[in-house]
């Protein structure tokens, strides 16, 4: 500043520097924080939204279920009820565990007392050929019949392949409950809207796995991307013989079963 001031005083008759320039610099100084704010805040905001921005088009979710690992503890059923506020009384389940008992004469018995939450009572009949547990849930079909029948567009398939229900627009007509070949839908007794498994969509967008997968103690449930190569689900589907439930319905389910018995419906 010193040389400038001396030059100014030398050139101009006035001893002070040019008031216009001083005014300009002063204003610049005042404007700096405002300018920074205008440019900087959106930048920071953009960075923030980039970190937790979720791009649904980049994902396609599916679940693997390994029948040979399921021990029928029904921790998944209990965890699902907690995580998704499912009414605790029986008959309301997003996921449930069925017990199959195939007797020597070919008779098939299926039961799921309270979805398996109270355990499975011992069987009276000792004449059993084979028996196992089958966890069931919404199959998140690629061609979902429930979406097709909804008269108000209240149930839909998201871009990442999860079937959700719009609570505000569902009129509770139960068409979807009828249409689902897997019995995965139910009507909420208080809200009077259709309810179902969402793959814990609120967890997926945070990068977490569904609650049932989180608590499964034996790793019988595997969650991941269907189309990517390096995910636990891709590995599961590479190393197991995979079947889906009711393939003849052409619903293209995204819940894949390994070691599934032919008797399972």
């Amino acid at each position, binding site marked *: 500043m010193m040389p400038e001031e001396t030059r100014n005083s030398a050139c101009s008759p006035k001893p002070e520097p040019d008031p216009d320039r001083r005014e300009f610099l002063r204003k610049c100084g005042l404007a700096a924080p405002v300018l920074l704010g205008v440019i900087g805040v959106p930048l920071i905001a953009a960075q923030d939204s980039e970190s937790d921005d979720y791009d649904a088009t980049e994902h396609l979710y599916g679940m693997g279920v390994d029948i040979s690992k399921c021990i*029928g503890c029904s921790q998944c059923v209990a*965890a699902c009820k*907690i995580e998704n506020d499912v009414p605790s009384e029986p008959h309301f389940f997003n996921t449930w565990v069925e017990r199959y008992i195939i007797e020597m004469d070919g008779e098939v018995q299926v039961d799921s007392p309270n979805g398996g939450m109270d355990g499975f009572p011992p069987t009276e009949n000792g004449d059993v050929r084979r*028996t196992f547990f089958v966890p069931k849930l919404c199959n998140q079909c690629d061609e979902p019949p429930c979406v097709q029948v909804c008269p108000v*567009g209240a149930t839909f398939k998201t871009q990442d392949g999860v079937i*959700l229900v719009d609570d505000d627009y569902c009129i509770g007509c139960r068409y979807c409950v009828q249409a689902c070949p897997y019995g995965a839908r139910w009507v909420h007794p208080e809200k009077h809207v259709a309810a179902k498994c969402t793959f814990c969509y609120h967890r997926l967008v945070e990068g977490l796995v569904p609650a049932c997968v989180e*608590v499964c*103690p034996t790793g019988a449930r595997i969650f991941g991307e269907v189309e990517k190569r390096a995910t636990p689900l891709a590995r599961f589907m590479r190393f197991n013989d995979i079947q889906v439930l009711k393939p003849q319905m052409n619903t293209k389910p995204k819940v894949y079963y390994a070691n599934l018995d032919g008797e399972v419906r």
Partner: protein
Amino acid sequence: MWKPPSFQGSKVPQQVPRLVIAIAAAVIALVVARSILVPDTFGELGHYRAAAIDAVVAREKSFAGQQECAMCHFPIMQARLEGNHRGVSCESCHGPAAAHVANPAETKPTIPDVREFCPRCHSYNMSRPTGFAQIDPVAHNPRVPCMQCHDPHAPVPPVTPEECSACHGQIASQKAVSHHAGLECTTCHVATDEHKMLPHRVRPSKPEDRSFCGGCHAEDSSSPGYIPRINLRMHNPRYLCWQCHYPHFPETS
């Protein structure tokens, strides 16, 4: 002289302008009705309200996920990863912990140290996969809390000779919880290699007389003092020991 055009004389039939007005009114009514009735974000991503996704995403989560647990409880996590419960996530036993993660001081997850908890997975059930560790909660050390013998973060299965238990699993698991748990199968039986090849044709040996049991249980035996003793000559001499006592699960008193 100019005359106002009359529909009577023109080529346009008189019903056409009326129809045009009626159709225009209907179209306007439709547009207005649509703008009022169709929700804001409907059709943005498909035949549904895009905002409905936000409503689902906004749901509160109860389970935090075990990555969150590892942030603070890393050592116990590490111990668990080396044991047989390596695949069991924290919240599988301790319950939903999102509230604990949000406020570690005030809300604590449960510690399921009651005997009723572990059998949820480990009680015997015919439908469970073969090889999964199972016990009969009634017979297996009644009233003793599971954690007194088993560390839930690094549980160890009872050791039985693999060779015998491969086929005789029921006997092995029964013996494992009995007073004879410390005895090898070969203490009382001699199983030759032929038995493993032809299990039904070549049988292992079994004790044949009372003096075999007397080796440990007779009054003059040199076995350790805590082993119950009987007088071989006075104690029901007409019977063989195993006609009253089941050697794989002898009486507790």
